């Protein structure tokens, strides 16, 4: 790890690709129109690595995913890019049924080192299918790790960790963070999977948030500073989930609000709340609040700003538990 510059998150992801593809010849990328590039994370890669390693496929998510899935069994380390993460649903069966169980059900003989990636998130007014937050759909199933970066630093470090992990890892990134700039060291470093980070210390309430919502959490913490002292925990990975870091924070604050840009129902927010009311029951001085997308398909039009979690909703929840 050497120099640190400011980079947009999407370039931090690309830097991880380049670093690891240079270092490890078995790393390949598979996707649709990744050579030309849909989002800038793949721009220019084909010039450096050629079409044997930057593999464009026909418009067919099962075949596309299969290129990666089968190659992983043959010793490659594929990164498979679904463009918009919601399109993973076209390959839900091989991902959620086959990939997730593959190692375990076959006696833990094989490992499948793969990264499954795609962009999503409210804010571009494209409607439910393009915005669709899929992290919790994948995290429901054991056998695939899931992470979502909040900062360019984490994006590069998590991506490096994801590519090197011997397991399938879903790396989901939020379109609303794509152009966020932040410090990114030039060299090699990993942000470990399965480890949350206290991104801001505080004493009155623990606020859990990641991805685009991390920015909203910071805005709310800034606004409330002086009044309410907010500790922000970024889970970074949501599966496996680092509940211990959250519990440690709760020991200090005894109050918990979880922001999860996802339908509320069976979300990471609900999972955290459930685990806390089991193993952390005595730590709680107030109800645990979840700030999520209400259980409606995410509308496009002009409705995202108030349907998706937003600073007002987060502030209200924080004030509520700190009454």
């Amino acid at each position, binding site marked *: 790890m050497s120099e640190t510059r400011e980079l947009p998150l999407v370039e931090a992801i690309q830097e991880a690709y380049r670093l690891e593809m240079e270092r490890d010849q078995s790393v390949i990328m598979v996707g*649709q*129109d990744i*050579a*030309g*590039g*849909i989002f800038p994370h793949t721009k220019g890669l*084909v*010039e450096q690595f050629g079409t044997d390693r930057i593999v*464009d496929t*026909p*418009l*067919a*998510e*099962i*075949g596309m995913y299969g290129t990666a899935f089968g190659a992983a069994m043959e010793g490659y380390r594929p990164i498979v890019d679904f463009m*918009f993460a*919601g*399109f993973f*649903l*076209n390959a839900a069966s091989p991902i959620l049924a086959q990939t997730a169980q593959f190692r375990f059900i076959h006696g833990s003989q094989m490992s499948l080192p793969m990264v499954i990636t795609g962009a999503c998130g409210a804010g*571009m*007014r*494209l*409607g439910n*299918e*393009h915005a669709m937050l899929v992290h919790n759909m994948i995290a429901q199933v054991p056998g695939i790790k899931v992470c979502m970066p909040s900062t360019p630093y984490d994006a590069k470090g998590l991506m490096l960790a994801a590519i090197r992990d011997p397991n399938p890892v879903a790396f989901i990134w939020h379109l609303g963070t794509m152009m966020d700039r932040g410090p990114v060291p030039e060299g090699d470093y990993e942000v470990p999977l399965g480890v949350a980070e206290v991104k801001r210390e505080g004493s009155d309430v623990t606020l859990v948030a990641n991805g685009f919502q991390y920015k909203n959490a910071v805005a709310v913490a800034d606004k409330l500073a002086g009044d309410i002292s907010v500790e922000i925990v970024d889970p970074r990975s949501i599966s496996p989930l680092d509940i211990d870091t959250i519990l440690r924070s709760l020991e200090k604050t005894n109050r918990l609000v979880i922001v999860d840009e996802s339908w509320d129902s069976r979300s990471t927010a609900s999972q955290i709340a459930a685990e806390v009311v089991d193993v952390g029951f005595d730590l709680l001085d107030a109800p645990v609040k979840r700030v999520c997308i*209400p*259980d*409606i*398909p995410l*509308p*496009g*039009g*002009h*409705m995202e700003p*108030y*349907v998706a979690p937003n600073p007002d909703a987060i502030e209200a929840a924080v004030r509520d538990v700190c009454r």
Partner: protein
Amino acid sequence: MALGKKQMALLYHNLVRADHFDKMMMNRIMQGKLLGFYHPGDGAMAAGVGASTFLGENDILNPHHRAHGMGYHVGRGTDIGRYLAEHTGKVDGCCGGRSSFHWSFPEQKVYGASGFIGWHFCPVVGWGWASKQKGEQMVLMASGDGSYGQGAAHEAMLFAMNWKLPIVFFCENNGMAIHSTAADMHPMPDISSLAQGYGMPAVVVDGQDVFAVAETVIAARKHALAGKGPTFVEAKTLRLREHDVGTPDLARAEPREAKYLEALKQRDPVVLATRRVLDEKVLTQKQIDQIYQEAKEEVARVEQFADDSPVAQPSIEELQAGVYA
């Protein structure tokens, strides 16, 4: 069967209208007056018009996403004002302003849209099944060449041929899917070769020729209504511009050649159709001028309607009430 002059005039009229609507949409997205994205149909508006203008009222129509279905909407007569209102997030939008870009005219059997390319290969089976049960209706399912990569396309064609469903698989083959070229996507020169696997009849037609497309679809529809099953109609067309406005116009990772694009422009379907209606004396130049004038006015009315409609921002409670019937 050759088209009559009245039919040709109607096709021409619809083509000019569709072309105007496409240009309106392009202008608006560039001016920031449209939500989401726009996939221009410029130079390729004939296929949709030809495929949809002579469908029956009970036929189910699934427009292609390119030009956001403008050729098909015009052919079917759906309310483009309400579609534009939808595309601008207004309360008069055909989906209540919730969708950014979907159409939904169920009373006219245009059942909705999706941002998942090839989504329609799933319900088309049921549309075809129901049509066969009821009789006297069929399905025109349009989509692009790229969409035939989807496995669901196979299931749809298999079921359609197995059950002899009244479906026309209408493919606008423009040889592109975003940055991918035909050669990247399919091993055979014609995408309709796929039909051979099922013994399904296939026809290749010049998609720049609105009249030829209409004739082909009329025949395929007749075949379907006679209980003879599906037809694959491949309309060879082109893509003049980038995939969607603002995306670089690449073939794989290289910009598409200007010379090549220039050649494509020579096949403009409106120019071709104008020549033909004048040559065959279907319309006079004066009538054509009139059609253009009306199209311009229609576009203005449609824009006015959408722009006058208030922004749709219902409460969360109102939205929740819309999830379940």
